[in-house]
């Protein structure tokens, strides 16, 4: 009986009721797609970390018997055309040593295995530029060995006693890993892979909180439309249970449809999402597809959350049949909400003293949620001020409406306010790279103790043979080769190739090479910022549009009668605009400041121009987007009020 009635309620809502259903469906679809994205992003970084783990060896325990060690592994970075190549040096200690992922067998001494992209590059460039560094290629690495599709990786086989496997190396992970004896090539995710995972978690928190707010708003949208109808049902004697079941059934049905649409939309977007370059490369599509279990989880969780939110929204109707039919002065928003935010802000610097990233993420999420808690209170305050100082009808209407329902007004602007928080946070966090002026590029390599002069001599010979004019000098133990004359990328790579293997286990590098990792991290933070901001914006704009439309739908009778009595549509429209813009200005600005405040403990160096520019662009886009989304509901307002005999339904 319930489902049947629910279905008839759904259909009987009329064209405008159906519009509400579509709005809910759209909102849920957007939420689901973005939620899947947030989850998939985390899983994708996990997958990358796992796949890269074999290059980050776990040494056998010191006291373990020598027979536990099956291989010696070391890694370093080489460079071609300013791109980093991960070079893994491997030596088997036992004939039955298992090969690393992506290789059919353990590489024999002298053999090299190249990743597809590196093999391709080696074919394109002259052997003197790249190929000669990796002679005797035995095959191509499988995707299981690669962090991302176009990655440049070389695996070089050695004998266990080869100089490359025994010579001392730097411990600095930026330069590579010294040779260690390992019991297996499974390895463990590297420090930077772990760092990226943490960054992904933070980004997800920043994206998911506005999403939850938005999803809740969508659920209440369904309920709001049904408020009066259901209150009427209660009046004619439907039991609270029946009312709740019917509404929840409707909300869940619509949400399920929306979630499915969202999942399809996400699947369609994956090919585009794989193009986002992070850590130096794009993504395997497989990494971005969350597993079936996750997908099923989201498809169950989203309708469930929407249903719960609907129940919460319905409490009023159920408690008192007159609760909705009769509207009273809403109880004042409690100041405690603001105290909560202030408390978190005060504690924030202390919370972030802790080194644990988990605590930082929690603190961030907390500040975020409290902002959301304080939002309605501040909106109410803004409303009182606006109404108190209003001269014209539009502002008066806007102000009174803000006081009447600060939560709904907050929902409209919360997206942008939370985005403002993110923008303020990240705007300060992304310094404009450690840009220093580079001198002419010089390749430098550390020579073994006491052999610097000898290595320098070899370097001169090799460079002369490769026809790269260069001045080779020795600074303490470092051999510095400064190519003279015009130097293009090809000549640089010839020099690199000539010097490859000059010192076993070490790669000659330039200052720019070494800085590359820092630059990469900053570039990735910037990409991450843009991704998070785009998601927040999508949410903010969708939420503004949906709230605006639903507010028109909810109040269509009053709007219609006002228009009949001669109230110009422009006044209603101006009131609606002010209703959004005033809190948007105050809250958006406030949120950016709060976000910036939260970012100060993490700040590296000064405020960056790039960050500020991102922030300004964000604010401008946010305002434009919200105004635009609100303007979209103007035709709806027109059509809703055009009915000469508006009837309550």
């Amino acid at each position, binding site marked *: 009986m319930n489902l049947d009635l629910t279905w008839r309620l759904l259909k009987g809502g009329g064209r405008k009721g159906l519009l509400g259903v579509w709005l809910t469906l759209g909102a849920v679809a957007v939420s689901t797609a973005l939620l899947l994205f947030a989850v998939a992003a985390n899983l994708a970084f996990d997958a990358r970390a796992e796949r890269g783990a074999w290059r980050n060896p776990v040494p056998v325990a010191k006291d373990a018997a020598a027979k536990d060690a099956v291989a010696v592994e070391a890694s370093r970075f080489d460079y071609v055309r300013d791109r980093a190549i991960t070079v893994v040096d491997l030596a088997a200690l036992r004939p039955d040593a298992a090969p690393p992922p992506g290789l059919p067998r353990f590489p024999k001494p002298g053999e090299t295995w190249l990743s597809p992209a590196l093999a391709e590059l080696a074919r394109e460039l002259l052997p003197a530029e790249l190929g000669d560094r990796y002679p005797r290629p035995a095959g191509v690495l499988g995707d299981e060995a690669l962090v991302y599709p176009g990655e440049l990786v070389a695996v070089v086989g050695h004998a266990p006693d080869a100089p490359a496997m025994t010579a001392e190396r730097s411990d600095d992970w930026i330069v590579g890993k010294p040779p260690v004896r390992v019991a297996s090539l499974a390895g463990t995710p590297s420090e930077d892979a772990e760092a990226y995972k943490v960054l992904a978690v933070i980004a997800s928190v920043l994206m998911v909180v506005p999403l939850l707010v938005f999803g809740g708003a969508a659920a209440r949208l369904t309920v709001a439309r049904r408020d009066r109808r259901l209150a009427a049902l209660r009046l004619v004697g439907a039991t609270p249970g029946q009312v709740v079941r019917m509404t929840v059934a409707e909300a869940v049905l619509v949400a399920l449809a929306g979630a499915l649409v969202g999942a399809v939309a996400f699947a369609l977007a994956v090919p585009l999402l794989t193009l986002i370059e992070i850590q130096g490369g794009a993504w395997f599509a497989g990494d971005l597809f969350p597993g079936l279990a996750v997908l099923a989880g989201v498809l169950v969780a989203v309708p469930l959350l929407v249903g719960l939110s609907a129940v919460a929204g319905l409490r009023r109707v159920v408690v008192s049949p007159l609760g909705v039919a009769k509207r009273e002065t809403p109880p004042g928003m409690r100041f405690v909400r603001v105290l909560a935010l202030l408390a978190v802000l005060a504690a924030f610097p202390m919370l972030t003293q802790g080194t644990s990233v988990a605590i930082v993420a929690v603190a961030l999420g907390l500040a975020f949620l409290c902002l959301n808690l304080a939002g309605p209170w501040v909106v109410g305050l803004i409303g009182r001020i606006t109404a108190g100082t209003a001269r014209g009808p539009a502002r008066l*209407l806007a102000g009174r409406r803000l006081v009447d329902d600060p939560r709904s007004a907050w929902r409209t602007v919360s997206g942008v306010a939370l985005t403002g928080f993110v923008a303020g946070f990240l705007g300060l966090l992304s310094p404009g790279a450690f840009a220093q002026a580079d001198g002419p590029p010089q390749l430098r390599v550390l020579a073994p103790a006491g052999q610097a002069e000898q290595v320098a001599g070899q370097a001169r010979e090799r460079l002369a043979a490769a026809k790269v004019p260069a001045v080779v000098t020795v600074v303490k133990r470092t051999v510095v080769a400064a190519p003279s004359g015009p130097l293009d990328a090809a000549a640089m790579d010839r020099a690199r190739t000539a010097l490859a293997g000059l010192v076993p286990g070490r790669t000659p590098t330039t200052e720019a090479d070494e800085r590359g990792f820092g630059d990469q991290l900053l570039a990735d933070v910037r990409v991450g910022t843009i991704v998070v901001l785009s998601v927040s914006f999508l949410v903010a704009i969708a939420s503004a549009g949906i709230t605006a439309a639903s507010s028109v739908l909810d109040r269509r009778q009053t709007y219609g009668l006002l228009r009949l009595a001669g109230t110009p549509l422009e006044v209603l429209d101006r009131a609606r605009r002010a209703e959004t813009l005033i809190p948007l200005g105050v809250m958006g600005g406030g949120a950016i400041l709060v976000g910036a405040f939260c970012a100060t403990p993490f700040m590296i160096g000064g405020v960056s121009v790039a960050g500020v520019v991102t922030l300004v662009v964000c604010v401008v886009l946010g305002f434009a987007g919200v105004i635009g989304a609100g303007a979209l509901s103007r035709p709806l307002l027109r059509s809703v009020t055009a009915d000469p005999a508006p009837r309550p339904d």
Partner: protein
Amino acid sequence: MNDVLVGRALVKRFGQTVALGGVDIAVRAGEAVAIMGPSGSGKSTLLHCLAGIMRPDEGEVHLLGQRIDAMGERKRSALRRTRFGFVFQFGQLLPELPAEENVALPLMLGGVSRQQAVRQAREWFAPLGLPGMETRRPGELSGGQAQRVAIARALVTRPAVVFADEPTGALDQRTGQDTMRLLVEATRHNDASLIVVTHDPNVAAWCDRTVEVRDGHLVTMSGATA
């Protein structure tokens, strides 16, 4: 010749339905006219045509000698705001505005300063039996009180004609009659004409005359005519 509002040969069709089949009606200054008739007979349609809410398919509507049915929507809207007042069955008050601001709204729309508008609005509360209700919100008023606020809102701009479509339809009979008496007295007091659609003969008795609509035609006229 002191007709304020005149409708001539008004015809309105909705698809196959003929809601008005050629209605002639004239309302004089200060006169209260009740429109009665069975459900679906065209009462609301007649009211909407006379008030410039709808355009009749045929016929003309004149306010003080000026033809209004041919005006554009913008002009008719301004006319409704300044020259007409409206009282509907319910739902016309903005729930978030206190009563006095609901009443002041039409004045503010007309450009009166907020202070002035609210002061003028307050003057209506005592005569309509609403002392102390100025700052209550519609949700905190009884149905009858809310209708009286709506009456104040309709009259505050000192309109030439007040239109009321079943203004007491949502009230019990006694409250309805009290409210109706207030409506008629207040409009008379303000030299405004009143056109009210009602189902209640007792309510109609408060008016100067009653017209009856059947199937889109005026069939009887009773009460004082001159």
